[in-house]
């Protein structure tokens, strides 16, 4: 099987495309949304310009893609496949806050290992070829000995310390990668890392109050983002709702409480969904979306929200935010998908990113 490279302008991202895989499929799988509708070459919604390289038009309808357009290099992304390496100019939003940082390979030495909870391990890596340039919220891919492929983990520290990469890793039941980290990883071990990846980042240019909703180890990216914002002196209100099951699952509390004491604009709300009724817990109880609704009085308009955690939590939070008048333009998400979550539910074209 030969694969080709697809470069997506104006993003500058380059992705691998399999033999026979359409441009649309490759882009969607790489997290680049292209407008599309019929999916089989009839409607023309996914029309895209090829600026370099050879493609096969596939079953693009003569009415959806005119001859003069073909001559001008237009293709239907849903039917076009690559014959060589290709560059497209896609109709994607310009994002003034996203920097273009080239992905690099690093070697990191494990210099810290800490049990944050009974099933979350804190891993601190010191980079040998450092520092890594990244935006808070981005992730790295880690190659683990004896584990096929690589595993993605969000960077939990602020970009100001590019010589270290701090990760918070929950043990996935029967997971090979996280199993290795929890059982075998040792101080001094050297691991291959590449990064930074991802477009989950704070749209600082928008200003205004920020709301971070995190579930479990989904707090890694928000932690990096909040540390970064507070270091820079971001003055607008920042709220973090961090949901876990019970007190035994909560970590980072002392640090976030200290930050909240030091910064009047930062509010930290830990939320427990399964804490026993009779316990000494004085804080919020319930799922992240319910707690967020309560602390915000149900109204979210004017905020920008960043959601990070398991898909059901994200879904519940999106609905709560929308019913509180905060819509797609102001909601950013990073979904954690484990291999079994990948069977996606059918999507309607109502939302682009959510």
């Amino acid at each position, binding site marked *: 099987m030969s694969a080709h490279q697809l470069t997506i302008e*104006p993003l500058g991202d380059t992705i691998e495309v399999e033999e026979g895989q359409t441009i649309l499929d490759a882009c969607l799988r790489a997290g680049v949304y292209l*407008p599309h*509708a*019929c999916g089989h070459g*009839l*409607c*023309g*919604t996914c029309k895209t310009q090829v600026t370099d390289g050879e493609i096969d038009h596939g079953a693009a*309808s*003569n*009415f*959806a893609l*005119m*001859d*003069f357009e073909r001559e001008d290099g237009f293709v239907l992304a849903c039917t076009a496949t690559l014959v060589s390496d290709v560059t497209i100019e896609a*109709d994607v*939003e*310009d994002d003034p806050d996203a920097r273009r940082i080239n992905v690099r390979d690093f070697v990191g030495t494990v210099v810290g290992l800490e049990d944050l909870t009974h099933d979350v391990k804190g891993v601190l890596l010191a980079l040998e070829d450092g520092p890594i340039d990244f935006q808070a919220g981005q992730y790295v891919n880690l190659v683990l000995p004896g584990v096929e492929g690589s595993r993605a983990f969000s960077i939990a520290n602020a970009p100001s310390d590019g010589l270290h990469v701090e990760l918070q890793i929950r043990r996935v039941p029967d997971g090979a990668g996280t199993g290795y980290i929890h059982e075998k990883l040792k101080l001094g071990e050297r691991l291959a890392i590449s990064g930074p990846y991802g477009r989950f980042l704070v749209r600082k240019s928008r200003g205004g109050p920020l709301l971070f909703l995190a579930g479990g180890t989904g707090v890694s990216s928000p932690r990096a983002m909040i540390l970064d914002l507070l270091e820079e002196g971001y003055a607008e209100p920042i709220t973090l709702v961090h949901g876990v099951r019970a007190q035994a699952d909560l970590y980072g509390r002392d640090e976030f409480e200290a930050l909240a004491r030091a910064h009047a604009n930062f509010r930290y709300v830990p939320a427990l969904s399964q804490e026993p009724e009779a316990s000494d817990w004085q804080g919020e109880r319930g799922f992240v979306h319910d707690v967020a609704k309560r602390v915000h009085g149900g109204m979210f308009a004017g905020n920008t929200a960043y959601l990070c955690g398991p898909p059901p939590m994200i879904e519940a939070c*999106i*609905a709560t935010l*929308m*019913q509180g*008048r905060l*819509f797609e333009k102001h909601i950013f998400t990073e979904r954690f998908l484990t291999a079994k979550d990948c069977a996606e*539910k*059918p*999507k*309607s*074209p*109502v*939302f682009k990113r*959510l």
Partner: protein
Amino acid sequence: MTAKKLGLKQRYAHMTRGLDWETTYQPMDKVFPYDQFEGIKIKDWSAWEDPFRLTMDAYWKFQAEKERKLYAVLDAFAQNNGQASVSDGRYINTLKLFLTGVSPLEYQAHRGFAFTGRHLRGAGPRVAAQMQSLDELRHVQTQIHTISQYNKYFDGLSEFPHMHDRVWYLSVPKSFFDDARAAGPFEFMIAIGFAFEYVLTNLLFVPFMSGAAYNGDMSTVTFGFSAQSDESRHMTLGIEVIKFLLEQHPDNLPIVQKWVDKWFWRGFRVLGLVAMMMDYMLPKKVMSWKEAWEIYFTEGGGSLFQDLARYGIKVPKYADVATEAAEHISHQNWAVFYQYTHAAGFHTWMPDREHLDWLSEKYPNTFDKYYRPRWEMWAQAEKEGKRFYNMALPQLCQVCQIPMAYTEPGDPTTICFRETQFKGETYHFCSDGCKDIFDDEPEKYAQSWLPVHQIFQGNCGGPTVPDVLNWYRMNNGADNMDYAGSPDEKLWNEWHAKAAEAAG
């Protein structure tokens, strides 16, 4: 230093700047008098994101090439006598239904979008509505041209606009669009832009075009491709409209939900004609109505309404009733047309054994139990020379205008009747869905032009069937009645006898 290249979106914004200027000779509220009375609140028209970013210049270029391609196919079709190569002479009846029942709706859509485009004060929706208006005009014209080839040989096509305005069953689609066009601009956008062009379009357009493909009608298939390349824009507009209204103000949610409920039900009733076409009129079947409903509404609509639930929009009221009725409506509609074949502008027939078996297979829960025995009884009566005609004029539903032949949800042996009192009169409905629509706006639907009432009031050419057919411009003995014995059948058989002779 060279300037940074503009993105597609910025380039478009630059080209279209200032289209939404504030008027000074007259206040804006006078220039746009209709965009407030419906209760829809818009805080910021500029929040509308034009998803198409198509300039008029580009629009003409695209449409011109589509036309060139389509007309080349139509010419080739005519030169090769394509009309003789379709699957069977019966197939032409689906085109009769399409041309009299659907094509005039394209024209209504053209006028509706032109009006709506004029009366919304945001530039984005105005431009989108204007382009859709032009598309719809193109669609009706190309449909007429495509089908005109068949009009040279077959009955029932020549008086389509006249029939659309007068014939009893054509008042079903006609009143649907009249209702939408008599509403305010926002309701029109939800009714036609969202409910019709997005939620239900796959159940209208796709069955006709796939039906054409399966039955060898390449000219109609080509027309379908030509139109489908516009439909994506229409579908996107429908989605954009509902998102925009829901995001603009929380007070819009209950209004939009009411319209979604209403237009889903109105659309579902109109689609009964398509259901009948799919299950009974296509000589070569594409899929059953029930299968189409499962794919396009239950699955496709399911993911749509799952996403819209985030805004608080619920699945349309009575969607469950419509899904249950997918087992019945095609049969119940065909029964109506069979009984009233003398007043139908296309031909009818009883399904043959192979066709009955197909229906039994596709409708294992209902067909053998409720419908097959009736068809076999009617077929037997035909054989004995006692073909059944219903000579009584049917009672019509005040809202959907369909004869009251549908059954109670969950009870396919009892006809469903509903009624309501308004200003001392009793109004009748086929369903809770239609009754709810009336009860919400009784002043509007009390004025409905109901074909049967009009006949009784003496407004339709006279009291007898021939009088009314004459007023419909329905050519008695050619346009109406069963396919067996029709001039269409005779012509078709002659062509094929000749072809068989030529083949030796």
